[in-house]
């Protein structure tokens, strides 16, 4: 397989936008193309991620739409959907096209727009990513999915609501340092614990927000990447699944798809968790960050909450997690999230993250989880 690199990244401001999803993606793509230093003519295909465009904008077939808005209407496109892991799945498939030698330059990313919808409608559309026969009719929401996993983790390991709150406080502290973040304000442990209950034991500040935004990366073959300003190399990109229904999962206190994808990504890269300097992972809810740090092999099962409490995952800690602010503070435009996480790790490995830079970061890990923990992607990137 041929080596593949990220040569350009672009992320819109996260928050509320009045433009269409395709226009949002075009803004991020423009930045990524300029950063890559390539002509739009060089792009041979677009791997595009979006989740609720059909419901929210009455717009399917968004692939050619984004190509048209970008002004490269002849370029082949494919839309990906793996719930919240959507654009990381698009990324992995683009990496494989380049690794196979089919193309030299590809544009990858995603966009999402939900703040034009009432909260109950957005909650309903997101719940479409849980099972339509068993889970949706019971009234389960996404906060509910992670609340069930949180309760299982608390019951098995003694993880506390305070430990979960530490994740939110830390990610908000990081978000202050990220001008693209939806929330650039610190919050206190007391505020998290006193925030309204959404799905017990999860409270408002345990949950990431609804977000509009887009992110894009330009991927290139080694030959093209060598001529670029600052290529960041892809060591591995792996995907794994677990049973769709929560009741089919063997252990609600673990995310098996994370463990499977991580093992595959480490094996492909010939690296282990001890080699990772900086992490962007899927903290859609505070418990999700705790469970991900365990599933990725950074901390023993049951100790992710302690790691959060001790500050080990903070900027300046032994393993900085979510320097961007994570989904919690940066925001979570679901179809764009994977690409935005990849863009952050590229920025970190280039040493260009400014006040949130992890000093000397050389290997970064990106973890993105889709839906009811049924899809996970893990990629490892390196500056060398």
């Amino acid at each position, binding site marked *: 397989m041929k080596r593949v690199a990220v040569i350009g990244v672009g992320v819109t401001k996260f928050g509320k936008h009045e433009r269409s999803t395709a226009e949002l993606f075009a803004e991020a793509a423009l930045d990524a193309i300029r950063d890559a230093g390539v002509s739009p003519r060089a792009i041979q295909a677009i791997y595009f991620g979006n989740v609720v465009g059909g419901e929210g904008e009455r717009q399917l077939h968004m692939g050619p739409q984004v190509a048209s808005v970008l002004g490269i209407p002849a370029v082949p496109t494919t839309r990906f959907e793996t719930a919240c892991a959507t654009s990381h799945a698009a990324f992995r498939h683009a990496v494989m096209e380049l690794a196979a030698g089919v193309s030299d330059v590809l544009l990858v990313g995603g966009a999402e727009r939900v703040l034009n919808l009432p*909260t109950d409608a957005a*909650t309903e559309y997101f719940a479409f990513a849980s099972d339509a026969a068993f889970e949706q009719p019971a009234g389960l*929401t996404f906060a509910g999915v992670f609340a069930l996993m949180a309760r*299982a983790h608390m019951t098995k390991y003694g993880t506390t609501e305070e430990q979960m709150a530490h994740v939110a406080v830390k990610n908000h502290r990081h978000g202050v340092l990220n001008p693209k973040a939806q929330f650039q304000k610190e919050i206190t442990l007391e505020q998290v614990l006193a925030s*309204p209950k*959404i*799905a017990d034991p999860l409270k408002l500040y345990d949950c990431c927000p609804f977000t509009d935004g887009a992110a894009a990366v330009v991927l290139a073959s080694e030959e093209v990447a060598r001529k670029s300003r600052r290529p960041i190399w892809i060591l591995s990109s792996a995907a794994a699944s677990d*049973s769709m*229904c929560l*009741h089919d999962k063997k252990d609600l206190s673990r995310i098996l798809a994370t463990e499977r994808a991580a093992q595959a990504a480490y094996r492909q890269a010939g690296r282990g968790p001890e080699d990772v300097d900086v992490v962007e992972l899927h903290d859609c809810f505070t418990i999700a960050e705790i469970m991900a740090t365990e599933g990725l092999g950074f901390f023993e099962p049951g100790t992710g909450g302690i790691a959060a409490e001790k500050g080990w995952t903070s900027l300046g800690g032994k393993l900085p997690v979510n320097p961007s602010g994570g989904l919690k503070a940066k925001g979570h435009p679901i179809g764009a999230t994977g690409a935005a996480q990849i863009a952050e790790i590229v920025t970190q490995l280039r040493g260009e993250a400014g006040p949130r830079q992890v000093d000397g970061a050389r290997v970064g890990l990106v973890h993105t989880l889709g839906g009811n923990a049924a899809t996970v992607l893990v990629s490892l990137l390196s500056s060398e």
Partner: protein
Amino acid sequence: VITLKAFFEEARAGRLTGIRCGQCGELAIPPKEFCPACQERAWEPVPLQGNGTIASFTVIRVPPRGRAAEAPYAVAVVRLDEGVSLLGRIVDIPLDTLKVGLRVRFRPLVYDNQTVIGFAPAV
């Protein structure tokens, strides 16, 4: 193989049906073609009594569209006595008395003419 339609028609009549793998003994909730444990295709239907304990639960306070009148309500993953889990809506149990390990019993529910798995107090 038991279809979703058949599973929920039976459930509506108060009967839960699982499937057991004739090769490895795995017990599962339909629908499945191959056994997720051994990938053989040797299912036999198994009646489930509907008695179990709460393995995890949540109280939904911000519901999806159309469910506001029902909120707050609880959803639980219940470990049935036969050794398989099933997710459903909790009914007739005060929310502040819910706890992991509480005994419950299956009760079919119908919302908008759709059959929903429910769990009520154990008798």
